[in-house]
């Protein structure tokens, strides 16, 4: 609290990003949140921003109306405040600067976040996912693959998990030797086993081959992987980097496998760019789409020059290559990049998602993230900038993975048990630091921080409101008819993910949501089925015993019935990206009102100042309560209070 100089500033104006609309209210600064409360009495919209979500704060030069403060959040919310007095603005600014740069993990929200849960529930949350069981599900250990205890104490590789699966013929000396020949000791280990063809997906980091170095143990290791699969005489080695980058690494004593030294490998570059390119690319994209009164041409050219969709395509293409090698050729594949924790994680996890329908369920998807990202040491702390660290280490690698998954859900609307909201919610919490799952860089650090004892698990929270993340079009038999997905990566089939990058820009979204609508109906169906059972039971009973007075009045019409059955959940009620959903209700409500002749438009509010361009009409803040902007943080904060 000592960092907070001014806990409250009044008469602050909130400007809309894409229009000339503004709202005035009070800004509150708490230990965990920055809160804006609109002063308009009957339409008090509130915005709660978790400090961890703030990516950058910028104080612009003083204007006649006050001192502008621009806050960019990692969940792609951008807010623009104008504070009347320069001093207040500066106080908030410097407090935020300090608050958003925690220096130790203990300062993160996860350590103070306390939902209404008892200790047992909290512990159960952490037991939801068991990776040992997951490998068993794949059919490992088996006659060719075994669990090794070489890394029980994180001695061989401190960024790997304790439990690792290797070919039975890979002896300890081979493992140790191989790990010494691999960047950061990340030697080849199993990440996915395709039981049908006994083909393995393995991952590792680049070899320390330089221009000519070789390592017999590493060669034996690959040989062992090859031998473990009787279906194929060779192993694919996928270097996910562009060839040029890999070659440049040789000068630093790293590099890639020489096909002459390794028997029975097929080496392949797939050309995904590195974290720095991805960071710059997304920055460019956000700059473009954040432009006011953007023209279609500038938008499309910006989309092109940012390269973002090109990179998304490259990642998907790599995953498709992996999937084909495994499912069609029945070959095992070893995937690596430089350190084997960014591109490798993307390609292995997406490949598994394409190959195995289990990962397309809600539970399976969590397992997939837990396995390929959390346990194998994707550096969440560095990549998501959890602590005040090196800005060059920050990169949207995981966001990009989620986007790839989204592109797949768009192409295969029946294949996934979950909907887009799950992806958005996971993204939200990877950056919120509210749950322990994504804190720190690897399992070893997490154990040191005793996260399982001191924080809560996101998976438990997500499962507790699982019905909100259901894809109503999900088809259970789809997995049987389409076990392996074959997406198209023709450029025209990849789209800009508006609901992610414009999550909080309400004016951009459809005003009615099909997803929300159908989810509501599905929930309503469930409840109606219940009601029917009860009614039938009562009717039966009625024949025998004298009637009891009816406690429930029968519904007047279908609409009331529908209203009763709306799920009262946080994410559905509070839209986040899903404000369109919220808005749909407004439309509904207003539609009813307007029938009684108080006609109002969807946007509500003033059309008094008229602008030359229609664009200015957009983004009007509704004149009524707008929970659309009270995002998830609101619910969270309420729970803490």
């Amino acid at each position, binding site marked *: 609290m000592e960092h907070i100089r001014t806990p409250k500033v009044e008469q602050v104006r909130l400007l809309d990003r894409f229009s000339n609309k503004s709202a005035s209210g009070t800004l509150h600064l708490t230990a965990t949140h920055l809160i804006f409360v609109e002063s308009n009495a009957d339409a008090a919209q509130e915005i709660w921003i978790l400090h961890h979500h703030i990516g950058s704060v910028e104080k612009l030069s003083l204007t006649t109306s006050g001192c502008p403060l621009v806050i960019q959040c990692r969940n792609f919310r951008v807010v623009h405040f104008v504070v009347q007095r320069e001093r207040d603005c500066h106080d908030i600014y410097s407090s935020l600067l300090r608050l958003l740069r925690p220096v130790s993990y203990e300062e993160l929200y996860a350590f103070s976040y306390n939902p209404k849960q008892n200790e047992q529930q909290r512990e159960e949350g952490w037991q939801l996912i068991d990776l040992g069981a997951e490998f068993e599900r794949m059919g490992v250990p088996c006659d060719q693959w075994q669990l090794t205890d070489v890394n029980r104490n994180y001695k061989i590789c401190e960024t790997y998990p304790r439990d690792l699966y290797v070919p039975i013929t890979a002896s300890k000396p081979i493992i140790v030797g191989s790990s010494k020949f691999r960047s950061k000791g990340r030697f080849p280990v199993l990440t996915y086993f395709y039981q049908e063809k006994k083909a393995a997906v393995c991952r590792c980091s680049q070899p320390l081959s330089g221009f000519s170095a070789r390592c017999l143990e590493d060669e034996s290791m690959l040989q062992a992987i090859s031998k473990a699969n009787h279906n194929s005489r060779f192993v694919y080695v996928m270097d996910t980097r562009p060839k040029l980058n890999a070659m440049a690494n040789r000068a630093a004593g790293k590099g890639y496998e020489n096909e002459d030294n390794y028997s029975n490998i097929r080496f392949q570059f797939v050309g995904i760019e590195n974290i720095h390119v991805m960071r710059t690319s997304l920055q460019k994209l956000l700059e473009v789409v954040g432009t006011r009164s953007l023209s279609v041409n500038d938008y499309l050219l910006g989309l092109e020059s940012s390269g973002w969709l090109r990179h998304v395509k490259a990642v998907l293409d790599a995953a498709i290559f992996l999937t084909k090698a495994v499912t069609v050729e029945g070959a095992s594949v070893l995937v690596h990049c430089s350190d084997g924790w960014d591109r490798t994680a993307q390609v292995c996890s997406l490949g598994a998602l394409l190959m195995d329908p289990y990962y397309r369920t809600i539970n399976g998807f969590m397992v997939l993230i837990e396995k390929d990202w959390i346990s194998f040491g994707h550096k969440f702390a560095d990549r998501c900038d959890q602590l005040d660290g090196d800005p060059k280490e920050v990169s949207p690698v995981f966001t990009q993975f989620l986007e790839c998954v989204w592109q797949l859900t768009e192409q295969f609307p029946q294949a996934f048990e979950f909907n887009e909201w799950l992806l958005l919610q996971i993204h939200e919490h990877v950056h919120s630091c509210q749950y322990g799952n994504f804190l720190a860089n690897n399992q070893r650090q997490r154990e040191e921080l005793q996260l399982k004892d001191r924080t809560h698990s996101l998976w438990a929270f997500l499962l507790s409101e699982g019905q909100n993340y259901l894809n109503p079009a999900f088809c259970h038999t789809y997995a049987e008819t389409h076990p392996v997905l074959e997406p198209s990566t023709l450029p025209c089939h*990849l789209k800009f993910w508006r609901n992610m990058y414009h999550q909080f820009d309400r004016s951009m979204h459809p005003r009615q949501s099909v997803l929300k609508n159908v989810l509501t*109906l*599905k929930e309503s169906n469930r409840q109606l089925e219940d009601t029917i059972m009860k009614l039938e039971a009562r009717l039966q009973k009625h024949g025998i015993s004298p009637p009891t007075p009816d406690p429930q009045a029968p*519904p007047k019409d279908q609409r009331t019935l529908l209203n009763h059955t709306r799920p009262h959940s946080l994410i559905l009620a509070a839209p986040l990206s899903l404000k369109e959903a919220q808005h749909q209700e407004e439309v509904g409500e207003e*539609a009813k009102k307007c029938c009684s002749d108080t006609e109002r438009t969807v946007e509500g509010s003033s*059309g008094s100042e*008229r602008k030359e361009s229609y664009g200015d009409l957009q983004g009007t803040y509704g004149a009524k309560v707008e929970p659309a902007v009270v995002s998830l943080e609101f619910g969270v904060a309420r729970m803490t209070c």
Partner: protein
Amino acid sequence: MEFAELIKTPRVDGVVLRRPFLPTVEGTLCLTGHHLILSSRQDNTEELWLLHANIDAIEKRFVGSLGTIIVKCKDLRVIQLDIPGMEECLNIASSIEVLSTLDSVSLMYPLFYRPMFQVIEDGWKSFLPEDAFKDLESMTEEWRLSDVNKDYSVCSSYPPLVAVPKDVDDDTLRKAAAFRHGGRFPVLSYYHKKNGMVMMRSGQPLTGTNGRRCKEDEKLINATLRAGKRGYIIDTRTVSVAQQAKARGGGFESEANYPQWRRIHKAIERSSILQESLIKLVEACNDQSHSMDRWLSKLEASNWQTHVKEILTTACLAAQCIDREGASVLVHGTEGTDSTLQVTSLAQIILDPACRTIQGFQALVEREWLQAGHPFQQRCSQSAYSNSKPRCEAPVFLLFLDCVWQILRQFPCSFQFSQHFLVLLFEHTYASQFGTFMGNSASERSKLNLSQKTVSLWSWVNRPQEVERLSNPLYEANCLVIWPSVAPQSLLLWEGVFLRWKRSSRCLDEAYDEMVHIIQYNKELQNKVNNLRRQLGAGEQED
């Protein structure tokens, strides 16, 4: 029959047909006067019946004696026919070329087509101006239906009956018509019940370089203003284009002569540019290249989405003037038959919930496009593949449909129809067995006596089974004005038309069916609950 001499080889056996998403079929190819037919002569395989009118262009290729004809259709589908025998192939190709470009209206298929279904309601009589006017009369008495154009002599592209201000006599109309491009004097397009404001449309005023004026024209449009109120004139052209039009005798309303009106210029492109845009867009969509940069830059260079945005924005502006500003609006471009109609019809979809129903949308197309004199035959005689030099072709109506689709995407529960209806209209404007989109104006259609000699598309559409197919299961009447977002991020490429033949829509269709199932199941359950409650209630009363 005249067709016989055009068909050199009416039948070829052993032809192989390849088309998107369907298995290859080998069979007999037949050419008739209006159709290209391929049948495998087996029961279970689908036959191909392709209207010659739907063929936009063909390409021939030969490998040895095996000829291949690539048929590119106006609905953007591309199919391939492998024909054994060089001579047969050449004959077929030249016949198709001739048959698909027949200019003579009297040979067109709708004049030969006999419906295989029972016409319940004659579509030619479904949307008469008299009926539309009755609705208007119930709301206001300020307008009258004038038959000044009953013999199409005042304006050849207007219908015989138009709605004009009550206080303006036919003589004034005639004089105003002389002052407007194509005789298209300002007429009523839409009456906004909520505040009594109106939208009118016309051709450009013929001011010329020396600023000619016409008192009757001024009187006519001023008659639509309430006392002390100002109106807006939305000119769909940029200022400079409008200025240039003066040199050719056209122009725009000057402030001096129309002091009660404020003029706003927008930038909707002319038809030839739109046609070029369509060609480029389709070319981009058919590009098999895997380069993302190439796709995005081609998409950008086509400018299609820019046109969509520009048209939508202008329509929103018109709607905003009427609904938010409480002002009346006059819309025109040059002729008043293209961009003008895009704007007036879209503005009505935004403002008027009735236009979002299946019947209402047909009425809108009938009123604002067919009756209003959009030259469908000229605009839709060629599509994106045609090699011949474009004359008056332009995807003006397709752009309108695209804009409607954008709004539909943003308000998926506010339209009674689904995108299928829009795709159907797109197809039938370019090639159809129905007479609805034949001709260029009401006058041409009446001369051809189409209402007697052809079947109306609406007769087909308004049968219960077709209505059901075109319905949007999520529809819930929404009587509000719906303001779409026109940000580039909110506008999408219309996959249902432009990527339709690139990837099978089976996945999406199945997901859609699942949604329909959930909705229907919900209705069933609710009925059941209501029944049970009633039974229970009745049972309890008895006791």
